[in-house]
Each structure stands twice: as structure tokens, then as C-alpha cells.
């Protein structure tokens, strides 16, 4: 199977994906959750709900509701600026007057400092992970063009995941929260996980036949690992899809993010990482390996 013949196609495909991601991020930006921006999320169960009344109660307390989402079953999610606990008590009292049967489901209020911290920490974690993975792969394959390719493929996946959430955010109201950060970091490892298996095969084939041409080598390695790659991704995709569809609202977007990450990771090991290795090999003078 001459998969590497498709390299121009991969290049175009990845470029389109990256551009779409870039433009979605620029035009639609993100739907940042209070984890990043600071603010309050208050989920309530309100029988005999009236949006007008709720808004009135808030404006009486000098608060503006930024967003009201219906969660189904008379459950509503309200978003507004971060407030102190006395203010919350006032709101609870006035809500109780108007909706005697209302129940609190979830309340979270985050100051803006914590939000900035999360962003900082996410970036640190991504840089740290990339650095460690780069060093590990570089060492393991004794060739840093492998390390660099794996890391670039990983950034490709990460960027598409972030871009996809600009799209999901715009059309379906998906939020970037601390769980998204976790999914992002997991994507880093899932992406590299898949790439490493194919790299391993290249190393093994190269050992058996030192003179073999790089393109031929890549083709053979991809062909031999393709089945495994697809089957493995299938099992993870099955697990995550069932979570997306059946897992309830709390983790729907978390599982979706992981799903996008895993699918990207499977594609990028063949479509990005290996073409990059071939590119590096073609342009480096020394064809040294192992």
C-alpha cells in the first residue's frame, strides 16, 4: 500500500483543518467558562419558571444575568458576575418569595484571579508535557527529527481540538473549562501514543534492512500498523461515544473533546508525523539513523 503517495493530499487536508481552526478562533473566539473568566454559575431547579421574573429579581439586586441556559427538567443554569455570599443570600431570599419550590443544584463562584491562574497553569503544563515528550521520543529513537515530528503532529492535533471548540462553542454553546484543559493534555499524550507505535515499526524495519529507502520504509510501517491503529482507536472511540451520548450533561463536552483529540491523533500519526519525518530526512544532509 503506497500511503505516502497521498502526502500532498494530507498536506492540503491538514492545512484546511488548521486554517478552519485558526479562523474559527479569530472570528468566533471561545465560550470561556467561569473557570477562566471568573464569575458565578448557579444551576437551579425552578418549577413554574418565568425568565422575566428571574431577570427582574436579579436586576432588583443590581445584577445582570449574562446567560440563562435551560438544562431540561425545569433545570436552569444562570451565569453572572462573581458575587459574595451576602448577595447570594439576598438572591436566594427573593427567589424563594417568587418561586417557593425552587431548589439549588449547583453553585460556583470564582474570582478573576483564579481564572488567570488556570490559563497560566494550562500553558505551563502544555509546554512541560511537550518538552518531556520531545526528550523522551528523541532519546528513545536516538534521532531528534522523530521527536520534532511527533511534537509538531501533537501541536497540529491540539490546535485543531482548540479550533473545534471555537466552532462547538459558537454553534452548540460548548464551554472551555478546566475539564477541557484536562482533555487537551490527554490529547497530547494520546496523539504521541499513536505516533510512537508507528515510529517503533519504522525503527524495527530499518534494523532489518538498513538500505531500504525512507519512503518505502514509511509505507511498509504504516501499512503494517494501520490495522492496529484503526482497531485501537475504534475501541477508544466506542467508549467515548457512549459517554458523549449517554453520560449526561456534566461530561458531554469533556468526552467530546477527548473524542476529537483521539480521532485527530490517529490521523496525525500517519498523515502528519510520518510525512514530517520524511521531510526532515530529505532535507538533512546526514541520513543517520539508529
Amino acid at each position, binding site marked *: 500500500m503506497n500511503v505516502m503517495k497521498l502526502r500532498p493530499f494530507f498536506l492540503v487536508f491538514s492545512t484546511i483543518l488548521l486554517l478552519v481552526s485558526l479562523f474559527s478562533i479569530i472570528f468566533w473566539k471561545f465560550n470561556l467558562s467561569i473557570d477562566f473568566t471568573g464569575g458565578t454559575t448557579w444551576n437551579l431547579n425552578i418549577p413554574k419558571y418565568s425568565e422575566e421574573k428571574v431577570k427582574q429579581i436579579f436586576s432588583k439586586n443590581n445584577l445582570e444575568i449574562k446567560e440563562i441556559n435551560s438544562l431540561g427538567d425545569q433545570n436552569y443554569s444562570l451565569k453572572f458576575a462573581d458575587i459574595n455570599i451576602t448577595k447570594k443570600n439576598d438572591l436566594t431570599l427573593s427567589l424563594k418569595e417568587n418561586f417557593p419550590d425552587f431548589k439549588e443544584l449547583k453553585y460556583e463562584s470564582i474570582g478573576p484571579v483564579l481564572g488567570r491562574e488556570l490559563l497560566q497553569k494550562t500553558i505551563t503544563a502544555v509546554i512541560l508535557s511537550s518538552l518531556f515528550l520531545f526528550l523522551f521520543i528523541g532519546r528513545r529513537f536516538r534521532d531528534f527529527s522523530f521527536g520534532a515530528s511527533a511534537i509538531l503532529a501533537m501541536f497540529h492535533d491540539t490546535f485543531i481540538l482548540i479550533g473545534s471548540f471555537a466552532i462547538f462553542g459558537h454553534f452548540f454553546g460548548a464551554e472551555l473549562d478546566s475539564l477541557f484543559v484536562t482533555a487537551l493534555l490527554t490529547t497530547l499524550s494520546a496523539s504521541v501514543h499513536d505516533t*510512537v507505535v508507528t515510529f517503533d515499526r519504522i525503527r524495527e524495519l530499518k534494523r532489518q534492512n538498513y538500505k531500504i529507502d525512507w519512503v518505502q520504509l514509511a509505507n511498509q510501517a504504516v501499512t503494517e500498523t494501520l490495522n492496529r491503529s484503526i482497531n485501537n482507536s475504534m475501541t477508544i472511540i466506542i467508549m467515548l461515544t457512549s459517554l458523549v451520548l449517554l453520560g449526561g450533561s456534566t461530561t458531554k463536552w469533556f468526552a467530546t473533546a477527548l473524542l476529537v483529540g483521539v480521532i485527530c491523533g490517529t490521523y496525525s500519526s500517519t498523515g502528519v508525523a510520518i510525512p514530517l519525518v520524511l521531510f526532515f530526512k530529505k532535507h538533512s544532509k546526514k541520513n543517520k539513523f539508529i
Partner: protein
Amino acid sequence: MTNRKKTFRIFWTIVGMTLICLVLNMPKKLPVNIHLGKFNWQHDFYRPEINFKLGSKEVKKNIDLKYGLDLAGGSSLLFDIDTSSVSSENLPTALESLKLKIERRINLFGVSETTVKINKQQDKYRLQVDLPGVEDINNAIELIGTTAQLNFYGVIDDNLFETATSSADFQKSVKDIGLNGSHLRLSSATINPNDSQPEVSLEFNEEGAKIFAQATKEFLSKRIAILLDGQILTAPVVNSVITEGKASISGSFDSQSAKNLSVQLNAGALPLPITLIQPSQIGATLGKDSLNKGIFAGVVGLILVCLFMIANYGRFGLIADIGLIIYGLITLSLYRLIPVTLTFPGIVGFILSIGMAVDSNILIFERLKEETRKGKDLKMALESAFGRAWDSIKDANTCTIITGFILFNPLNWSFLSTSGMIRGFAVTLILGIFIGIFTGVFVTRNLLRVFIREKKI
């Protein structure tokens, strides 16, 4: 053949281990009813408790699964700690004492399984308090967050003290004896052994004891007023000079008012001021709902994965599925034994790691197909498939473990996240990978050696 013997020994060890895990994971009470014609058998099985003596050491462990706040419901409060008033060498003691006092305060109100943690964020300190089951967040905040100042004053002018309406009058009527909340180690409600009346006991630290001894000498037969945030709590008369730092206030207390006063006294005794920055609360119904949905999704996914493996790899797939079930049992047992507190992201980590655990098997089986295609007999092919797949399994999983550790942040680096949600995910992911390698490689290999005989795939 010794090799065969060894394989069987390992096989029975695996069977034994699986049975132990099965017992650990059975429900607390399992009623069994068997009706077969005339035969009737009824017996309730109980999960054995871990409670035995090992030499002189008593081993006791609660192996119930622990659920985090997002699943069990409850409140979580994050406070900023103001450390500006304490020098850096005294800071560790002050922080430790703060933590102890908060824990004590919560315990007084009878909330169980709370966690109180102090995190360092760059140069700032934060106090995190998790209260499972406490749904009234206002009550929780009052319980912990009262940043009251407790002060002791000697009363010099009794009449003025009684009638004082302004703070200026009050200041004239008393003398500050330099004793405050930071000197108070503990206050509790007790019963006087002589007249069995409720009273409130006070215990001061070393410095406090000295000041208090001096004050009781100076104000013997006079009153000492105790103020919380400028409000007079009580002003008992000093009956004797107290030198050892332990005093008790008696009077017209009932057991409730004695308890309230001691709680208030403890409340004022925080060595460092704290301010609430992030309250959050999750209702128990919401938690239970997410848990049930998560488990349902996991079970459906697992069944589909098992079917997928059988469809793709036939009897090998079946063995891999058995390995997967053993994987699940070992993982759950470890959650109980370590114990791992399950959060929703944790469950997702577990579900994700199931997918990864199957990966080892897929790698091996694909190798196996290749090797048999080359014309090797099954036994040879099996051994070389395991050998060759091992390199890939090792490298690929190392990458996941690297990110897993960065997420878990075991050294509590302040520039990385210490959030419970993210950690919960990392813990189950890391555990899942190690157990997955164990069952995917070691367990299935031995199962295959025992069950798979010569026959073409």
C-alpha cells in the same frame, strides 16, 4: 514439563487474585435464594471486613468506594490565607495550627469525611475545605469563614462596664491584658464533675498561659470580659489565680449554650485571617444522576468493546475480554484499598483507560496475525508476538504516563494545577495504564498459553 507447570501455577495465581478482587467488590450484603423444586436454599453473604491483627498491629480498613463532591454532593470552599502578619519562620506552625483549628471546628458540627488542605500558589497560600453532604453552603461558610477577632479584657470599672453604650465608655471601663485568640489553643464544652453543670473550658498555649496567670492575679475576684469582634460574649468573675493555662467558665449554661460559646471561642482563635474566594456547591441529586449516567455509559461502552474484540479476533478476542474483566476488578479493588476518591473526571479516566488497556491486546494480536502469516506455528507465533509488541506497548504507554504525572503534579508544584478534578482524572488514568499493561500483557499471555491449543486462527 516445567514450563507448563509454571504456566499453570501462574494461571491459578491469576484465578485466586481474581476471586479475591471479586469478593472485595461484592455488595455489603448479598442475599441468595435458590428454589429448585423441593430444594430450597437461602443464605445471606456478607462482604468480609478488613479487620485483623498482624502481630501486635491492628489492621482495619474501610473498603467502601469513596466518592468526590461532584458525585456525592456537598460544598467546597476555597479561602485565601493572609500570611502578612506572621514572620516566615513561624509560618509553618501557624499554617498547621490553622488547619487543625478548621478541622476541629468542622468536627464540632459533626460533618464527616471532610478534607482540609493548604495549597501554595506561587507565594500565596490557599485553604481548601471540602464538605461532602453539606448542601447548605451558607451554613458551611459561617461555620468556617468567621474571621472573628477574639480578645480578652480585664474589667476595671464594673459600673461603667455594665452601662457602657459607646465604645469610648467601654474602652474606659476595661484594660487590654494583651490576650487574644491566637493564644487560645482550644475551647470545649464540658461537664463539671462536682455539680454536673455544663461549663466551658479554655486551654491556652504557653505564652497565653503566662499572660493569663498574670491577668488572673491582677483581676482576682474581678471580671475578665471576652469579646468576639467587639461583641461581649461573656464576662466571668475570676475565682482563683490560674497558672497552668487551663480555665473553665461556669454559670448558667445549658449544654447547648455551653457548646455554642465554645464554638464561638474557637472561631475567634484562628491564627491567620482567611477570606473566601471560591464557594461551590453541588446538590446530591445532580451528583447521583451523573454517577448513574456515567456508569451506564461505561457499561454500554464496555460491552460494545468486548463484542468488537470478539468480532475482530475470535477466541483471542474472548480471552482479551476475560483479561479486560479482570482489569476492571483489579482496578476497582485498588480504588477501594488505596483509597482513590472517585470524581466524575476520574470515571472518565477509568473509561478511557479501558480503551487503552485493550490497545496492548490489539498490538499483540495484530502481531500474532503477522507471525502466523509467516508460517510460524501458533505457539511460536504467540511468544514472538508478545516479545515484539512489548517494545511498542512500553514506549507508547510511557508517553501517556509522562502527561499523567504532569496532570497529577505529585510534587505539588505551584505552577501546575492542584485541582481535585484534574488530579482525580490523572490518578485513574495512571493506575489504569499500569494495571492495563499488567492484565493486557501478563494475564492474557498466560491465559492464552493455557487455553489456546494448536489450531489455525
